[in-house]
């Protein structure tokens, strides 16, 4: 399945037969090494992207060692089914006033802010389209139903979400944030009008516990 390659290379073919024996051995060895390396690479990538199967289950460790971290890939765009829900990450803060009293802000829809930034935007930024969205995916993927983290990645994802929320809330409140709370509101996309399926129903809420905000969580400018 080569490309439609050009045939204007001069003397195309090194003319292996014209070389001395050591040179021929060197080229042959090189060809063997490159062939094996390419075959191993393509095999490993194939087993990595293929569904879990007899071979990939048996050699999961070797495949993982080969693929991670630099050849990791995932091409299940909207597959097997596209995402069918809008997840809005919202946050509210407990602020400390100058008189020492604390006040509670209303819920701010951080995802809606992203949505507004993306609206009529030909070049959406990763800060608008990926940062919060993927941070929440990261959190959801590393926590169980009782919000317990699954180790290093779980605790990193908490810190990540907290820092994003604090950075965005501090920007709009201008007062120090003492504690912050995050929730995710999931709304199922209503089925198409021509479908006989039932509508999505009410949004569901996943509310996390209040997190105390450490100095390290604050953006540089607000410390």
């Amino acid at each position, binding site marked *: 399945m080569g490309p439609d390659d050009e045939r204007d290379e*001069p003397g195309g073919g090194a003319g292996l037969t014209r070389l001395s024996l050591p040179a021929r051995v060197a080229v042959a060895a090189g060809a063997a090494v490159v062939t094996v390396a390419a075959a191993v690479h393509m095999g490993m990538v194939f087993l990595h992207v293929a569904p879990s199967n007899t071979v990939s289950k048996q050699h999961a460790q070797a495949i993982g060692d080969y693929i991670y971290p630099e050849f990791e890939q995932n091409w299940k765009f909207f*597959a097997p089914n596209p995402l069918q829900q809008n997840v809005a990450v919202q946050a509210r803060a407990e602020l400390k006033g100058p008189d020492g009293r604390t006040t509670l802000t209303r819920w701010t829809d951080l*995802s809606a802010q992203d949505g507004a930034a993306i609206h009529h935007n030909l070049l959406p930024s*990763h800060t608008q389209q990926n940062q919060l969205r993927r941070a929440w995916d990261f959190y959801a993927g590393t926590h169980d139903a009782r919000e317990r983290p699954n180790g290093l990645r779980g605790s990193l994802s908490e810190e990540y979400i907290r820092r994003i929320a604090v950075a965005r809330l501090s920007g709009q409140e201008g007062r120090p944030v003492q504690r912050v709370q995050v929730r995710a509101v999931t709304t199922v996309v209503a089925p198409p009008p021509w479908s006989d399926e039932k509508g999505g129903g009410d949004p569901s809420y996943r509310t996390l516990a209040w997190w105390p905000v450490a100095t390290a969580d604050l953006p540089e400018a607000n410390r």
Partner: protein
Amino acid sequence: MSFSKAAPLAALTRGVDRVTGSSLGRYQTAVIRIGLSFTWLCFLLREWPNRHELYGPDGPWSWEMARRLIADNHAFTVLMWSDSAFWFECVYAGAVVSSALLMLGWRTRTMSVLSMIGVLSLQNRSVFLGDGGDNVIHLMALYTVLTRCGLVWSLDARRARRRGQDPAAGPDLTGIVLWALCGLALIAAQIFGGTGLSWTTDGPLPGLGWATALWGLWLAHGVWWAVCRYAPGEPRTVLDAFAHLAHNAALLVIMVEVCLIYATAGWYKIQGSRWQDGTALYYPLHLDYFSPWPELSHALAGNGLLVLLLSYGTVAVQVAFPFTLLNRRVKNVLLALMMAEHMGIAVTLGLPFFSLAMIVADAVFLPTGFLRRLGALTGRARDRLLPARRKALPPQREGETASRTLVG
């Protein structure tokens, strides 16, 4: 066609001669180089105002958090060598400059390595920011290093042509200085880089550390130069054969990678109930994060027949693509369809950089004749826009053969 017993052997010899004696797909690899470094460059410039928030030491994904994750996943990033804001600015600016020079094809082989370091450093620093487009750029940056992607449409090719016309040309001073600087930078990295550069672990492949990989590339470049200068006979031919082999293998890997992207995207979709009932496309068009033009999205999604056709068409094209490579004409039709679909995705789903990266990756399958015509058209357009340059430059004759001896 002869049916004698010697025929398969002769065919094998011819095949080996071809992959050891020529770099195939020179225009296709040039398109990959130009297209992907252009995409990455545009991305870096677009995110310039947000660079601190995305990759900087004090962004939401802080340097310290990245350090903890990388201690676990061992990804390569020079940004972990220091948490200073100055180092970060240097790396980001370095990524911009190296990708621009790679696009122009200036010292292509060196720039492909530097540009890869830029891609890996930024993406691995903040892994939870990327999407499919970043993933494509990441993989292709690694593969491109092994290709001779500067043989055409590059400043290197132009320089080689000029040197070929000038027998009195002196030694390539710039190249020597650049190579020496890279060596010094590697020594500095080895001393100050901490754990990032090891010889046998935490590298691109198991058992191969980044120190071995980078020093190996540097050494190969030096040996190449020395052999070209002092042993232009057989040793030169052997090194040429190695370079051709690595290039052709990397090109094959790039093509297989593109096929795997479409195959997995398609085959996993076939299993989904929404792709089966033909409503799949309706849903992304109603996702807030992927509908920058809601009026357009909702109008599209409102037409049941159109959604069905587009959903089925997408799956059919993605599943079929690898097989159409057996037939040139069908392949070209599908290529055009896929590129058109990605242009649509760029706007409707608000994924311009992902779409551009995919279109460039598709372009590795474009026919050489088409690419050469495109090159000639571009050359003429440039001459018309910049008439003053026409006299100053020798005529661009793409595919000229003098480049063989001078462009690595």
